[in-house]
């Protein structure tokens, strides 16, 4: 027996809506996924054949934790990453023979 619709609700204080969207997107190959911003929480709806909704929710929440960490690391390192790429492009333009 499989269920055809599963809802997972994540309060914004747990995870920002954009991060919930990012995690939900990862499931969009297996299910039809919709994410709604409902004021103080995000609501994720999965349509499709779901064998065990508990398993799906566990998986979702585990990936969400990772994505929250990813978002934090990206915020922390984004400016450095940009500086590195800029320095690389600058040096490559200065030394057209280099980089091989």
């Amino acid at each position, binding site marked *: 027996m499989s269920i055809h619709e599963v809802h997972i609700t994540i309060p914004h204080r747990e995870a920002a809506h954009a991060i919930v969207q990012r995690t939900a997107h990862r*499931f969009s190959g297996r299910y039809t996924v919709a994410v709604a911003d409902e004021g103080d929480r995000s609501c994720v709806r999965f349509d499709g054949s779901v064998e065990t909704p508990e398993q799906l929710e566990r998986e979702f929440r585990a990936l969400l934790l990772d994505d929250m960490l990813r978002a934090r690391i990206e915020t922390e390192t984004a400016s450095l990453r940009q500086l590195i790429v800029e320095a690389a*492009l600058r040096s490559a333009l200065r030394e057209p023979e280099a980089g091989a």
Partner: protein
Amino acid sequence: MKFQLISAFQSNADSGYRLLPFRFGRLPDRPDEVLVTGDSGRFTFLSQADFLAFADHRLDPTTTRARDLEGLDLLHRGDRPIPLDRHAIAWRTRKAFLFDGPSLHIFVVTLRCHHSCRYCQVSRRAESDAGYDMDEATARAAVDRLFESPARQLTVEFQGGEPLLAFERIRGIVEDIAARNRSQRRTITFVLASTLHGVTDEQLAFFREHRFELSTSLDGPAALHDLNRPLPTRESHARTLAGVARARAALGADHVNALTTLTRASLAHPEAIVDHYIEQGFTSIFLRPLSPYGFARRGLARQGYATGEFMTFYRRALAHLIRRNLEGHALTEAYATLLLSSILTPFAHGYMDLRSPAGAGLGVLLYDYDGAVYPSDEARMLAAEGDRRFRMGSVHTPYRELLLSEPMQAILAAGLTEGLTGCADCVFQPYCGADPVDAYARQADVYGHRPSSAFCARQTAMFELLFGYLRDGDADVMRVFQSWVQRRAVAEIRGEPPEAIDAAA
């Protein structure tokens, strides 16, 4: 003499450390470990606990673990400015192809072919059909474009159809290029993709003179090959081997390579295909899954297969290859070698399909027999099916206009894995690439949709397989991998006992 203790050179523990840009993920069968990859492709495995401590700034900066991660370019201890040069140069080295311009120039000299392979990637024409050969004016203009590319190292590849059916055109193009290169002084490699059926001594002498690399198709033992590649006479396999033997005699074995196309029928025989390549004296095999283009798409139902089925085949093939290499048979798998080179070396690779920005157009230009210019073979296939959206212009369009054409704008916009949803934060991003033309062909969207992309599924499975081997660190397997990456004999590679990874900590 006053000497200071090491503590005098350490920043104090309170100043902590900063994170350098990295991505992370997990392998399916190791949920308690985290794979961390830096932007320049260096990587490590950490236990879940260590990873969280690292990412949450809870590591003691004076510990060996913190030092290890700093040496791997994943963090920077102390509060002094982070020197950017080593990271910038590492990044630049991996993106070296960016600064060269198109280096691969493909000439489709004819669409005619004597085969009628059901999965054929090219929209072939019968051997006797007229009007499907490249004419001289087109060829000369294409060579103009070739030399407009700034790349110092150029590869010129002849494709068909069966390009040998238009040998005189090949000769004309090569001689034109050679003459112009006397003043241009580029390093040029010529490649011919051919069945080698009926190749003549005169042709071989010409290929030898110009140091051609010959690339043919060999799908495995005779029964499999002939099933895949029907000829009226049912002797494709025998004729291919005869062509290979004559080509080797003329050019040397290292100038003759073969590619494998895998159909559904192939998937049951990974060991037999590998062994056949060894028996036939090849040193490289390229286990290519069927591509979705051209006639192949129509035959998919019967000959096609899902990523999972391909990976089951590929896992067996790779394990068998490793065994045979350890027995002393030097046979590399080209795709694994490519990915491993990207993972295990600091250098850029030449493979167009795994670049970011995409190789299409930026790395490759394809000149079709009728004078159209495309950014890749896939773009030509789409055009042959009636969708000309990736046609950049004609061989008479100046290089600059070709590179600024509308199709290239689309490719540039969608060709950066650093910016694509599902790619940008993928742990395998440093080793993977974007191919907007492929994404469009598969999913009707240049940006593609990773969660449902067969390309992404296969790439992910390949990386998981290879990183699984790297994590296991079996000394013999590592020797085989290094021998492939370094193009050396396995016997020359010395054991590197892996450092214990403290996954329990």
